[in-house]
């Protein structure tokens, strides 16, 4: 007996917006050596939207996502899919690249996620973009199956997001502020010799930096050669950033100032067996690689941006033996958002059905490192982090993600100690239990036992304990519905989405 969940993924990118609807089948399986576990057994895409431009409007200095237009676009997708939004039970909406830099990004994301369905979460963040693209392209799965070290390179309109995957684990991410839409141009009056000329309609910060480094300016008309130089420069920088260039020697200072995150470390780059290219530019690279025509003339300036030229320039530069162009292409991130954001918790968790506090949205995750020989460590660490965050308005629920538990901690005494730490925390800082509720997240399979011990100690608090969750890469989590087991009602899991909400500055 399996249970299926309709999940939506929406990606509002720099240039384009797309959506996928998928069906996730939750199955109860007996794994060697354990109690039955609930897990996602199959993921099937039931609808994939066409690629649509992200509507951007300008109000004076402000760059905004056109909320009404984008709402209509999404409504239209649902109509095409013939799906009632109320059926959607999971999923994520991510605002990526330059769209995450618009002045209303956060508000639009929140409103659209709410409108998209009850359990749809909004997300953003350069780290997450890379992670979702790598999961959506299948690079994570491939690395898990084959043991290869893969670098997924998702090149969109505004950003290039890297994710390094080792044996199926994403170990590092990086984000470079370069993409196909550094600059948007329009053809204008040809010059005296009747050659094509372009005037700049829009140019982002990275575009201006590159123009400057080439001695060009966005105020004067640009020739096709200028644009191609600009694309080549961007390609060289991207290839250098990923260390896949056949020639190297780009200025590191320029790379550093264009990098949103730290520049990826050489230690990881040197291990990469394969590079997978996804995103809008990745798709263009794939289609050009197939044709592999050297005819410069055919690659004009479609979409009024550098996408095509950048793809061409990158193909010329990179070490093709290690490059793969994945079929998911431009859809990688949205597939990641729709199919791979939900984690299913362990099947023995601490949740009382009478305490229906679910779903819980935007639970802030505090990462705690267990210290065996330091009584009161939990209170100390939480106090420190809350002071650092400088915000606890009593509305945002909190989750404590307990790391570094040793083998000795997975014992009766160890769990009693942990429960005592939690009880001490609630005594000293009662405000951490927002609306009397606190979430404890663990990797190790001890949630039900911790819950039992806590229940004996703290009767008036609602402590939700869940295990089998890796929350390392998130700042927030959403707890969705409970997923039951057909075998035993005591084997209950929760659908969890770990997310970040980092809208770029």
């Amino acid at each position, binding site marked *: 007996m399996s249970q299926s969940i309709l999940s939506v993924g929406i990606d509002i990118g720099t240039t384009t917006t797309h959506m996928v609807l998928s069906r996730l089948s939750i199955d109860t399986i007996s794994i*060697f*050596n354990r*109690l039955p576990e609930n897990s996602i057994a199959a993921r099937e895409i039931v609808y994939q939207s066409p690629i649509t431009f992200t509507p951007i409007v300008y109000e004076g200095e402000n760059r905004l996502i056109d909320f009404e237009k984008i709402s209509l676009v999404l409504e239209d997708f649902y109509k095409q899919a013939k799906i009632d939004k109320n059926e959607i039970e999971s999923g994520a909406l991510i605002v990526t690249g330059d769209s995450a830099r618009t002045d209303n990004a956060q508000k639009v994301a929140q409103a659209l996620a709410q409108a998209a369905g009850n359990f749809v979460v909004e997300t953003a963040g350069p780290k997450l973009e890379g992670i979702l693209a790598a999961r959506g392209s299948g690079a994570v799965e491939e690395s898990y*199956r*084959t*043991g290869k070290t893969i670098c997924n390179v998702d090149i969109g309109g505004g950003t290039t997001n890297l994710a390094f995957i080792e044996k199926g684990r994403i170990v590092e991410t990086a984000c470079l502020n370069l993409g196909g839409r550094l600059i948007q141009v329009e053809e204008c009056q040809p010059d005296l010799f009747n050659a094509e000329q372009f005037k700049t309609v829009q140019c982002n910060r990275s575009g201006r930096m590159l123009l400057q480094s080439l001695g060009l300016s966005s105020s004067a008309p640009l020739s096709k050669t200028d644009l191609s130089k600009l694309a080549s420069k961007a390609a060289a920088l991207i290839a250098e950033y990923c260390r896949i260039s056949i020639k190297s020697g780009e200025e590191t200072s320029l790379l550093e100032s264009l990098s949103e995150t730290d520049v990826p470390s050489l230690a990881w780059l040197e291990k990469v067996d394969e590079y997978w290219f996804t995103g809008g530019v990745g798709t263009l690279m794939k289609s050009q690689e197939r044709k592999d025509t050297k005819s410069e003339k055919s690659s004009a300036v479609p979409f009024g941006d550098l996408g095509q030229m950048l793809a061409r320039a990158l193909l010329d530069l990179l070490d093709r033996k290690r490059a793969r162009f994945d079929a998911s292409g431009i859809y990688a991130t949205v597939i990641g958002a729709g199919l791979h954001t939900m984690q299913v918790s362990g099947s023995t968790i601490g949740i009382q059905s009478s305490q229906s506090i679910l779903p819980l949205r935007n639970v802030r995750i505090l990462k705690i490192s267990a210290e065996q020989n330091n009584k009161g460590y939990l209170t100390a660490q939480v106090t420190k982090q809350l002071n650092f965050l400088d915000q606890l308005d009593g509305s945002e629920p909190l989750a404590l993600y307990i790391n570094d538990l040793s083998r000795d901690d997975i014992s009766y005494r160890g769990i009693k100690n942990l429960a005592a730490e939690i009880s001490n925390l609630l005594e000293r800082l009662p405000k951490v239990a927002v609306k009397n509720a606190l979430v404890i997240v663990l990797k190790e399979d001890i949630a*039900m036992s911790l819950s*039992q011990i806590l229940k*004996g100690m703290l009767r008036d608090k609602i402590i939700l304990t869940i295990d089998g969750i890796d929350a390392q890469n998130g700042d927030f989590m959403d707890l969705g519905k409970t997923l039951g087991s057909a075998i035993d009602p005591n084997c209950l899991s929760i659908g969890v989405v770990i997310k970040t909400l980092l809208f770029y500055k």
Partner: protein
Amino acid sequence: MLEKSKNITTANLDYLTRLTPARLAVGRAGSRPRFDTWLSFRKDHALARDAVLGDLKASFIKEFVQTYDLLVVESQAGDRKNFVLNPPSGKRLKDSEVADLSAKLGQTSPDVQIVMSDGLSALALEENLPDLYPMLLDGFRQEGITMGRSVIALQGRVAIADQIGYLSGAKIAINLIGERPGLSTAKSLSAYITYNPSPSTISSDRTVVSNIHQEGTPPVEAGAFIVRTVKRILDLKVSGVRLQALS
């Protein structure tokens, strides 16, 4: 999505071996196993044999009995050798013990009667009980589930708990028993749970929570899970295959 590779490569094998503790892709040296493979096999086999043939340590019994005020009984098997050679003898108490145990337990008719048996791995009890047993005590107390005095049954098999549960008039008998060791672990424990236990209990009447050890379901977590399972069995008044049919 990319097509999954169909050929077995070294990389694929690496993936497969990560899925299971079984001895996959261990290689060979000529027609023989490799030296390290052979040694690790011999080691694990020796551990399994020791678990089957070993008795519960006297020091462990003494400490556990003192801490938790337990009773100790023996099956008809008498000793380890006879237990292994003559398995049915482990299913019943020594005749001379029955009256005595009956008196000590009294007809208190508790909700739960716990029995701990060495079964095929005394090591499993020594490894897991210190974390599992107190979880059960706490959990049953919290849930208002009453317990009879718990019993350690030496040279015991699964069915001995049903006989002991019947003697105390318990609604539920639980046998925490060492599992038959394999080559990946010799320390695994199972909990067999029977509603309305009696000498005529059959296997399909028992609900089991198995693979309790540090690398499987940790004993503390299993403890909390057993408490919930017992609560459910008390509510539904049925265990074993018929319990599963109800879900």
